């Protein structure tokens, strides 16, 4: 089912503001990362060089999925995320300093520099991500199981890309979660591509919410990268999950402004595509909506400032931190 515009006005301004601030923070975080990532990679791009080496998958443009659902989650709820995790992490309240330090490979990082950008784990807010497509879904199933076994109303959200919905793990996990009636929500971010492969070349149905019937569960579709529609779809899904009514698949149409990873030549898509998408920017739209709802522009400015400052501090923290000692590589394989 597609969220109609009628319900949109039911969302409180407080929630809209929260989403706005998070979106700004995510956007600014990723914008900074674009810059930082190129440090040390000029004049010749070299993936293994610079301040932040390795692959870098940014979520610029995909903020609505993360904040629309994040607005309904508490600390005890679990989020698993794939290779493109920053927006989910930020919306879940992951420690931004330690997250950034991890991406910088510093010893103060979430994983003491062992994990990196695709492997951010913050057990404090129950966030995890992974570089293997679709692999986080079963982990969310397990978190949902644990919640049920412990008699808690906690939910688990697995974020995946539309490409991941064709992996076996998707099917197995949803069948299991449906069967055991678990508080699981799978959010499919349809950003139109899996690396270079367009959705129509990877997916035999229009949208993955249509696959919900294959498990006898609920499905919802959010179009136009709309954070408010996402908020509403998530609201239903989360309350369904908390109330023991089982899993939901939500697919959201979203936009990938950047390449699959930084350095992607993007020869597979039209040069005009991204500028077109950027004109539909969800942050701009939400700001307009907030102003429409007579939010003080100054307040918005303050929110933006606060968000940016938090991000700036996180980057500074990362820069200021030390690299781990080389021999630390031998630690943490096993706990004792």
């Amino acid at each position: 089912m597609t969220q109609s515009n009628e319900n949109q006005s039911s969302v409180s301004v407080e929630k809209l503001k929260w989403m706005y601030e998070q979106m700004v923070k995510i956007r600014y975080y990723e914008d900074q990362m674009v810059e930082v990532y190129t440090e040390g990679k000029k004049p010749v791009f070299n993936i293994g060089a610079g301040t932040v080496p390795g692959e870098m998958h940014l979520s610029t443009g995909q903020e609505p999925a993360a904040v629309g659902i994040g607005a309904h989650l508490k600390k005890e709820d679990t989020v698993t995320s794939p290779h493109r995790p920053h927006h989910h992490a930020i919306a879940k309240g992951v420690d931004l300093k330690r997250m950034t330090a991890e991406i910088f490979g510093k010893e103060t990082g979430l994983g003491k520099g062992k994990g990196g950008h695709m492997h951010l784990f913050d057990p404090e807010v129950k966030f995890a991500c992974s570089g293997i497509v679709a692999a986080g879904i079963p982990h969310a199933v397990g978190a949902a199981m644990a919640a049920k076994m412990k008699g808690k109303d906690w939910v688990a959200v697995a974020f995946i890309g539309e490409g991941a919905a064709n992996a076996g793990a998707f099917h197995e996990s949803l069948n299991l979660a449906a069967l055991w009636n678990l508080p699981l929500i799978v959010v499919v971010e349809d950003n139109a591509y899996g690396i270079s492969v367009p959705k129509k070349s990877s997916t035999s149905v229009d949208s993955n919410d249509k696959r919900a019937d294959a498990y006898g569960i609920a499905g919802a579709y959010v179009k136009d990268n709309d954070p408010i529609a996402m908020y509403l779809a998530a609201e239903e899904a989360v309350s369904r999950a908390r109330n023991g009514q089982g899993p939901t698949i939500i697919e959201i149409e979203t936009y990938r402004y950047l390449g699959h990873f930084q350095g992607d030549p993007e020869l597979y898509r039209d040069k005009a595509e991204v500028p077109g998408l950027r004109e539909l920017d969800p942050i701009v739209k939400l700001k307009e909506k907030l102003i429409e709802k007579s939010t003080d522009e100054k307040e918005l400015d303050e929110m933006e400032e606060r968000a940016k400052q938090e991000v700036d501090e996180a980057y500074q923290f990362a820069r200021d931190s030390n690299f781990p000692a080389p021999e630390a590589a031998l630690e943490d394989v096993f706990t004792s």
Partner: protein
Amino acid sequence: METAKKRILTGNKAMAEAIALEMERDSNVFVLGEDVGKYGGIFGSTQGLIDRFGAERVLDTPISETAFIGAAIGAAAEGMRPVAELMFVDFFGVCMDQIYNHMAKIPYMSGGNVKLPMVLMTAVGGGYNDAAQHSQTLYATFAHLPGMKVVAPSTPYDLKGMMISAIRDDNPVVFMFHKSLQGLGWMDQLDASVEHVPEEAYTVPLNKAKVAREGSDVTIVGIQMMMHYAMEAAERLSKEDGIEAEVVDLRSLAPIDRDTIVKSIKKTSRLLVVDEDYLSYGMTAEVAAIAAEHALDELKAPVRRLAIPDVPIPYSDPLENFVIPGPERIYEEVKKMMRS
């Protein structure tokens, strides 16, 4: 020892007893897998558990190994202590990503901040004509990849003690049990698959090999069935040839107990490694390499290796017997070695 005090248990009952004790002790422990409920595990590893603990703690799963092993990971991250069963180790390929990229790596990638206290138990071994997709041990496939403890106990006593250790361990443990050592009524009845097992909970370390038989002339390193076959060969060598073989039961594949291996080689100066896994890049290679690194000067004869000769396991009896080492072959190898 008084016979009256003996509790003769089969391997599978020793395992199930270990799990039951831990389920009683810690409400976070639960079991999931295919046919672990009413069926009690195809190889009896969960026998009786559902009756005692109910379907909420002993969960039959769909044939979705990626989902349920992945779910065990997710639950372990939340502080539960799942014991997941992969019915045959041969099925690892449908779920190895969860096992290896996640279960084994998350603790490390998180810098130790996420612990995964879980056991992945799985049946290994051939010798009953179950052919290429149901007869493997894949010891080295698991032991090669860091981040998991990989154990393969050879006796009911160790099955119980190492299962208890595995469940209590805060790290992921791959627990391989050998079908033929479960003492099941519908397989070969091996003496080695039944023995006295104490009633109470006890632990056996997950990182120590055991000298199963002392000897002075040659060291035979093996695990599970090959260890038992080595014992048979050793008895015959002693009786018929006056050769005293020292038999090392590896028990733990990862971490491997280098010290016990090296100590034995230094004592006997000869090494034969026997394995029910494939020859190349297998356990026999690792043990031989340890010898070449740490006991080279003590070796009086070239190291010998006996294992599945790099072929899939064939179905037909004469073929399968040809590829899986037995006591005869071990005996012959030792005899050849003593000549050189």
